């Protein structure tokens, strides 16, 4: 079993889409930006409270005490709270499609989220080295909590699957067509046309009469020939 896979039922291997150092650092940057904003809000609120209620408060020391305890609570509950509420995600992780899971790929426990939060200070200092050199991109908190961070699987429409293929075509060629199905809307039209034309020529060579010639563009003919069940989004 590779370092990045786990065994599911019946010992079928499941490859986990482990999140790397880059995406995790970006998610942490987003989270720390939000955290900084909250700290600023807390300090501003305490300052405003001290000014507004200066007559009513017997001593501003209580306000400072409350602020110190609130900042401490925020520091240690910000990440833990989010991960507990959003099932392994913080706002940063959610934006980037990441999630904390157990080392087996299941849901992490509440205690695991606590452990990850408690060593965050050490991870800010040393975690990057662990992330880079660990096969599963785990920081100190992940090692202690027995967790990993994975990319949230994004659903892909079954419209990207090939429904018809020329006789004798193997998985490798089919995969090329499906990749084009998935990406044709984002590629430059002339590039898509050239690729579609080339694929259709190959398909005709393998099985004469395979191509659907009803479309006005090569891309449309390709989509219809390989049987996409959804209405193609290319213009006639």
């Amino acid at each position: 079993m590779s370092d990045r896979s786990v065994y599911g039922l019946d010992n079928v291997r499941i490859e986990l889409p482990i999140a790397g150092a880059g995406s995790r650092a970006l998610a942490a940057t987003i989270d720390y930006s939000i955290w900084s904003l909250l700290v600023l809000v807390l300090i501003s609120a305490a300052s405003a409270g001290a000014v507004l209620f200066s007559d009513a408060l017997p001593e501003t020391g209580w306000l400072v005490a409350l602020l110190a305890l609130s900042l401490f609570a925020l520091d240690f509950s910000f990440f833990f709270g989010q991960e507990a509420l959003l099932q392994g995600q913080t706002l940063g992780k959610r934006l980037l499609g990441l999630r904390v899971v157990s080392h087996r790929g299941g849901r992490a426990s509440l205690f695991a989220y606590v452990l990850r939060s408690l060593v965050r200070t050490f991870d800010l200092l040393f975690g990057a080295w662990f992330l880079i050199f660990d096969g599963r991109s785990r920081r100190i908190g992940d090692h202690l909590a027995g967790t990993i961070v994975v990319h949230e699987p994004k659903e892909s429409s079954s419209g990207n699957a090939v429904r018809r293929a020329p006789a004798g075509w193997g998985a490798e060629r089919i995969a090329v067509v499906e990749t084009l199905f998935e990406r044709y809307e984002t590629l430059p039209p002339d590039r898509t046309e050239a690729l579609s034309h080339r694929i259709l020529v190959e398909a005709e060579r393998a099985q004469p009469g395979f191509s659907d010639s009803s479309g006005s563009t090569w891309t449309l003919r390709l989509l219809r020939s390989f049987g996409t069940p959804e209405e193609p989004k290319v213009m006639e």
Partner: protein
Amino acid sequence: MRYEDFVAGQTEAWERFASRLDQLEKAPSAISHEALEELSVDYRKVLHDQAVAASRFDGTWAVAHLRRLSVRANRLLQPQETSKLASPLRFFSRTFPQNFQAIGGEIAVCLALFAVSTVFGAALSALDTEVGTAFVGQNSVDGLGRGEIWTDSLNESPATGSAQIAVNNMRVAITAWGGGALAGFGAFYVLFLNGFLLGAVMILTSHFDMDGALLQFISAHGPLELSIIVIAAAAGVHVGRELVSPGNRPLSARLPKAARRSAVVMLGCLPWLLVLGFVEGFISPSPGIAHGTKVALGLVLLSLFLCSALLPTLGARPRG
């Protein structure tokens, strides 16, 4: 089997499985027992299809789609590990004492190291008072010369001092524990630093005949506060020990167990540090409270803590 036949024949089942996973994720409690059983049967089928697709149609949409479904199902269908934090009563009456007693060896080692570093700090400070000055600052030393101790400043705003002390102590405890993950070195560092500081400052104050004032100040909160720092460091050392000692099971399995056990001990100590913050801010610096009362309070707090930690625990010791 042709790829297109494989996809056409199974797509409906995969889509049904995906929509059931959606339901499970949105409202787990709304899923009936029968639906859950069907889901597990479908999961087995998806895993089987994934294995077939991976061996015959590698690189295709079907393989990627089935891999995504498997990863998602693996997360949602595995039972979540239970958390003993759910009930505070159970935590303080059972989980905390069990785990505290399990790291008794590390506590003894850390206590010895703390004592040695205190003696070391005291010895160095006796040889050169600059050692103590480096910790408390020149202004505080000037104050000692005038017969004033720096802890008197806590009387100016006990609430602020109390909160800041509590927060600082909790950070020290967490650092001492977390430092254990660095093969125990972080924990030893915190332990040594605190012991050394205590010894150096005690000798420094004795140079100015102010050691009595310092002892009076620390007598209410000191015994428990220092004990908790030692215990937090011992919890960290417990993690560090697991990192460096060989075991029958892989480190990836042993380390989380050790971390969990030690974190329970450290977390069980944190509420006491809140109490100690209050004592250190309001009672310790107060000139109106007799020294005897402060000593008694210090002993009572330490005894209460030790009683709660050494509580005879019912049932088995922690596993692992």
